[in-house]
């Protein structure tokens, strides 16, 4: 099973599905002869594609729209907000190469504010699978829902077998009273390996695959904030508006706080290059994550009497 096979089976089983793309066919290239007029390539017209998707949804269709993340939701943002968002239509936004996955493209292609932008739209749901199998486990429920949805597609191979998916629920890989790593998307692999390093150093480490950022698993976030000495957010996203912000909002809403160490891009784009280069340069490889977490953990233990809200990026 892969993405193309899943969308093919979904569309063949339910004629409401329409597959749209603004000339990004690579992963769905075999579908045109199979889906016929339910495969619509609008050419490089992202805003028109989203407007058309709204029109198709008004007629009872479920359009699944494909484009590179920056163009799908930034170029067409006002169409997503105004046509899909205001009308709350079940348009499904499948974004390619969000976050670090745009590796060598440069800042024009870096979708690192996608979570922030999408979650501000009333009724929009936001999902970031950890790897291909996680994505395949998540998509059927996301596509079947009556809500508009944004998904960071991720076809990278996984490091674990994932649990069944439920909207609004995170996947808890492990619990740990010292440190809990909260991560979404392709950085799950690095977080998983960082957890192994931290455990080898004797830190009791929790790991959570967030999966669903809106709705988010608020109960889980409150629980780990209360039970872990240090909470770490790991995201290939701006510090503003992503998981770190989500946690800050939840803690504030619940009149509590926590020691939170964020790994994110603070007010800057990332240095382009091959993915391995990007991870290393930006400090997101497992050993780099583990090292910084260890240091911070030691420092924050000293602060145990007077908990500090750690903001250093």
């Amino acid at each position, binding site marked *: 099973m892969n993405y193309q096979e899943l969308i093919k089976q979904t569309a063949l089983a339910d004629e409401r599905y329409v597959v749209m793309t603004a000339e990004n066919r690579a992963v769905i290239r075999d579908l045109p002869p199979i889906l016929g*007029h339910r495969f619509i390539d609008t*050419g490089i017209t992202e805003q028109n594609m989203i*407007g058309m998707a709204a*029109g*198709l949804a008004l007629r009872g269709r479920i359009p699944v729209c494909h484009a590179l993340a920056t163009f799908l939701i930034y170029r067409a943002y006002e169409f997503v907000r105004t046509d899909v968002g*205001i*009308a709350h239509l079940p348009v499904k936004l499948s974004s390619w190469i969000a976050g670090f996955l745009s590796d060598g493209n440069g800042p024009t292609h870096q979708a690192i504010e996608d979570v922030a932008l999408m979650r501000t739209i009333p009724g929009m749901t936001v999902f970031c699978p950890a790897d291909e199998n996680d994505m395949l486990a998540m998509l059927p429920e996301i596509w079947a829902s009556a809500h508009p949805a944004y998904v960071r597609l991720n076809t990278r191979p996984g490091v674990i077998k994932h649990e069944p998916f439920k909207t609004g629920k995170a996947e808890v890989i492990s619990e740990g009273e010292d440190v809990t790593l909260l991560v979404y998307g392709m950085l799950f692999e690095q977080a998983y390996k960082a957890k192994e390093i931290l455990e080898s150093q004797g830190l009791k480490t929790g790991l959570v695959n967030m999966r669903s950022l809106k709705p988010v698993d608020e109960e889980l976030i409150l629980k780990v904030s209360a039970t872990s000495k240090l909470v770490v957010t790991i995201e290939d996203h701006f510090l503003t508006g992503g998981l770190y912000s989500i946690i800050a909002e939840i803690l504030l809403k619940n009149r509590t706080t926590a020691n939170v160490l964020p790994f994110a891009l603070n007010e800057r784009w990332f240095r382009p290059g091959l993915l391995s280069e990007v991870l290393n340069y930006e400090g997101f490889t497992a050993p780099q994550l583990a090292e910084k977490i260890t240091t911070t953990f030691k420092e924050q233990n000293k602060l145990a009497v007077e908990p500090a809200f750690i903001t250093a990026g």
Partner: protein
Amino acid sequence: MTPDNMTPDKLNELKERALKVREHIVRLSTGGGCFTGASLSCADLIVYLYSGFLNISKETLTDPNRDYLLLSKGHDVPALYGMFVELGWMEKSRLDNHLKSNDHIYWHPNRNIPGIEFHSGSLGHLPSVSLGIAWDIRIRGGKNKVVVITGDGELDEGSVWETLHVASAYKMNNFTLVVDRNHFQANMRTEDLIPLEPLEDKFRAFGCEVKRINGHDFEQLEETFSQLPFSSTKPSVIIADTVRGKGLPSIQERADRWFCNFTGEEVDSLLKELHGEEETTLTSETLIVR
């Protein structure tokens, strides 16, 4: 040439209806006001389309086989409100709720009003939404007509041309775009800012079959719309030349009378003006930011 089905009786009925719709527009142009001029330029088009051309009725407002009219130039919604009242789709008393929070009667269209297919207000959106509707109708083998009305200033928006580009690539012959060519955008004559002419050539270059008519002449409207689709392989475009503020000489073609919020006395006088009495001397504020 008068088409056979445009009898003198039908013509009179349309003209009377258009006058009533214009009266509604004028009455909505106070107590907060509305986009009076653009609504008046579009009024005859709206009246024509809902008086027999479009296959839609109070009973079929959500029927999948209905014809679709989408108003992309959302400022014209007072013409729709007025038309819906005349059609009996909306209680006349609801017009008293204009700009009140107890209802959904405001400056732009929204789907809380039965008959309004989709919200608009941000220009250049509904051509693509309409194309999506037309696409679904085509793959279901439906015969529904899909008509989207845009402004002429709205044609500045690149998304309109993206849509036509795609519509013509896919030979969407069930898609019709009508331009309310009133020659004004908000604050200026279109030709004084970003000139649109020669407009037919531009639409033809985008693969559309184009006709240009007087958008206030019911006989021309009937003759032209009855020929749709103009081509079996192209989208159709109708450029309806109109006059902003049509019916009210005191605001007609006045760049400073875009959004109007008249005094009660002005409304009384303008209602008479619609019926051919003398021009109103306007004292209410002009050039309101909206």
